[in-house]
């Protein structure tokens, strides 16, 4: 006889007793498991050790709050303490993985502003423009260009991966129309600056590795293609450019999009730099980090290859002003106003300019007109990633 049949054959009184037993078993089981899980997690959390910064999440973690009488009266100390315990919870990374996994199962494909796309691509969402800020930036650039009529001013905006590689976005995803945003910027500045079109160039090469899969930036290859187009627009003398070959400086890059979202934290990708073939073709240069008061002979900061943010190998990250002097045979001088996208493109420009003054308005305290007056700048290039440009306020400050 099967178990079911045996059960059906029992008298109702007996069956009720069995049901009651099962009820008891179930509750006892849950009681034990609940107490166990709660006990284990509580004990594990007692393990001392506070972290001030999370590499995986790339953000500062809340530390123990200061106690004040007012804070206790209105509860703010306790609220901070709650956040502190959450941030410092032992096993936080593991639990974060559990949550990301559960979310993925449920269909979620976006976390922290980052899409989990196809083929291991992480794509940053396209930022909606801060209209007021953007209009100000455009105005100031126009005025700036007007002040220096003899000097050509170029504007190069780099589209985000979510725009160029939109086939890699998760199904149904909808982003801002960056092409349209760029087009309207181009039109507003049609009379004052020379527009360098990057979007169509990148689109031509979109089957190649032109964007990092775990970071918001373009790869050096993507920058290279853009540089070729830039050279045409700026009419650079390509005779001066040495032949280049790629060389991987690291194979274990895991970028900022991974930290921000928790996706693909195990993915490792290479960072390439392009070096001239043959040692003699290497341009000699000195890069002066003006605000820090340091000088180096190379544009690559290998110390940044240890740790999380390896993209900073280019120029050591973002600085207010970097003054690059080269041994190039020319009197041309370039003022480059940029955000972090430009960092991996600058090495391509060194053969063409005697001096490149690199300014990042996000960090620079001064203003651009002073630089123009104090140096014999022959051309100006604004090079920004699309997302930064439409929301940036630093540019207006520097152009005041």
């Amino acid at each position, binding site marked *: 006889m099967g178990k079911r049949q045996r059960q059906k054959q029992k008298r109702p009184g007996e069956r009720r007793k069995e*049901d009651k037993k*099962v*009820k*008891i*078993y*179930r*509750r*006892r*089981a*849950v*009681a*034990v*498991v*609940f*107490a*166990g*899980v*709660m*006990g284990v*997690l*509580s004990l594990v*959390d007692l393990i001392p050790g506070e972290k001030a910064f999370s590499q995986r999440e790339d953000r500062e973690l809340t530390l123990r709050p200061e106690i004040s009488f*007012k804070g*206790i*009266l*209105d*509860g*703010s100390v*306790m609220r901070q*303490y*709650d956040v502190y*315990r*959450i941030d410092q*919870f032992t096993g*936080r990374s593991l*639990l*974060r993985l*559990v*949550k*990301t996994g*559960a979310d993925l*199962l*449920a*269909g*979620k*494909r*976006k976390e922290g502003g980052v899409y989990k796309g196809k083929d291991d691509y992480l794509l940053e969402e396209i930022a909606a423009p801060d209209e007021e800020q953007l209009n100000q930036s455009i105005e100031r650039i126009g005025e700036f260009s007007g002040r220096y009529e003899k000097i050509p001013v170029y504007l190069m905006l780099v589209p985000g991966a979510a725009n160029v590689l939109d086939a890699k976005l*998760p*199904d*149904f*995803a*909808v982003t801002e129309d960056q092409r349209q945003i760029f087009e309207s910027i181009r039109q507003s500045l049609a009379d004052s600056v020379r527009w360098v079109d990057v979007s169509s160039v990148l689109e031509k090469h979109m089957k190649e590795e032109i964007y990092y899969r775990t970071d918001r930036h373009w790869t050096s290859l993507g920058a290279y293609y853009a540089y070729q187009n830039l050279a045409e627009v700026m009419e650079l003398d390509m005779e001066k450019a040495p032949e280049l070959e790629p060389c991987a400086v690291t194979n274990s890059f895991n970028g900022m999009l991974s930290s921000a979202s*928790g996706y693909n934290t195990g993915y490792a990708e290479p960072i390439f730099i392009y070096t001239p073939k043959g040692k003699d073709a290497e341009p000699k240069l000195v890069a002066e980090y003006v605000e820090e008061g340091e000088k180096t002979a190379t544009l690559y900061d290998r110390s940044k290859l240890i740790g999380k943010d390896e993209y900073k190998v280019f120029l050591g990250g973002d600085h207010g002003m970097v003054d690059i002097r080269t041994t190039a045979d020319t009197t041309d001088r370039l003022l480059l106003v940029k955000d972090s996208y430009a960092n991996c493109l600058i090495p391509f420009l060194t053969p063409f300019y005697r001096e490149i003054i690199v300014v990042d308005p996000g960090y620079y305290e001064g203003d651009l007109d002073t630089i123009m007056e104090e140096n014999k700048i022959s051309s100006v290039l604004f090079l920004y990633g699309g997302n930064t440009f439409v929301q940036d306020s630093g540019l207006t400050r520097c152009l005041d």
Partner: protein
Amino acid sequence: MIFDSIIFLFAFLPVLLIVYHTVPVQLKNGVLLLASLFFYAWGGLLYLCFMIVSIIFNYICGLWIAGKAKKRHTQRLRLFVCLVVNILMLGILKYGGLLLDSLYPAWNTAENAGFGMEWLAPVGITFYTFQMLSYIIDVYRGKVKVQKNPADLALYAALFVKLPAGPVVKYSAFVKQLHDRKGSWVKFGEGAMFFIRGLAKKVILADNLGRMFEEIMAEAGQMSVLGAWLGCGAFAFQVYFAFSGYSDMAVGLGWMFGFDLPKNFDYPYGAGSVVEFWRRWHISLGAWVEEYVYRLLGKGSVFSILFIWLLTGLWHGISWNYVIWGIYFGILTVIGMSFMRGSLAGIPGVLGRIFSMVLILTGWVFFLCPTPGEAFAYLRAMFGIEANGLIDHYGRYVLMTNLGLVIIVLLSLTPGAYRGLEKIFNRGGRSRALVNGIMYGMLFVLCAAYLVAGDHYPFLYLRF
């Protein structure tokens, strides 16, 4: 303190459970009282002071009302005074901020925020005040003996288990359990099951619905019909799962300490009519209103129904959208109750359920939007007028990337799925019971994961 927090789950609760179950019986209530006061003080020492004042005041009221009186109507007068003072306290603490705002708008700035100047109504004030009112009214009616032990009365008002979000327990139902309750592993297990289910409702369902709601509202200017309904549903169900989750947690915690607290929700979205919906929603409050307010006003009259609904709306906030909400449901309730056996109230079967759901969701729009103008604009989008099409890309995207959530939410709205699971586990033997236990354990861990790594949405009803 709130139930869905790391500090409660992995510090306060385990320590309290251990202490409570180790001390001798005479000390157990004392432990609970101290723990409850600490729990409440965690939200701000100032707010604890308000509650203690209320408890002491009502303790004295109880003694006063029960005391001997020379004339017959003296007692009624005493009751009246006590009621008025209680309601005044509730009113001032809840709405004082608004009054201050209109008289001295300069005070309510960001600098003064956080310390009573930006007036945050103390958490649970309505709950403990209503319970105190229940006590003194029952003493007046002679339904219960006056409570001479202030600690016992304090425990009734402040028990952390039911303080943040109810249920509202009548004093008469609670007082016997003060000294006559037993714990057991089975009760503890039952409590753990309720608690984990409630925690999951809040942290996994409600908080994610809140996130989904924000996603939809990011494109609020150009919603399609699909988008508008997704947004409204996300909002309505977020409130439901947060509130019923808290209630489940309260009942569960009660069991862990031997208390048998009343259920507060009975699958309201499975109701066949609007009247039935509200009978299944916040059941303990409905019972309280029926016992202590309805009788005063004249039970069942159109006036009393509308009046109570209007008050309920205003209780959520003094603004026109809440007034409309109250009147809307007031009218629907009147119609529903008049046609109790007619077609409108109880359209049978699925059609009735869908129709009620539409009516209820429409009502929630007035909570969702802060002004009536926005609410009507939203409603127009929901019903296809001035909407960005029936289905738009963005609506589809939000739906597809939240598909798992949507499916689980829909399954959890009615008892069917849960009862099915219960049948499966009630049939098996020990091994199935163990599997059941492990499933609950995994659910608990999943909740911890969402608590630690997810966005946290404070339960909006805590403000009430």
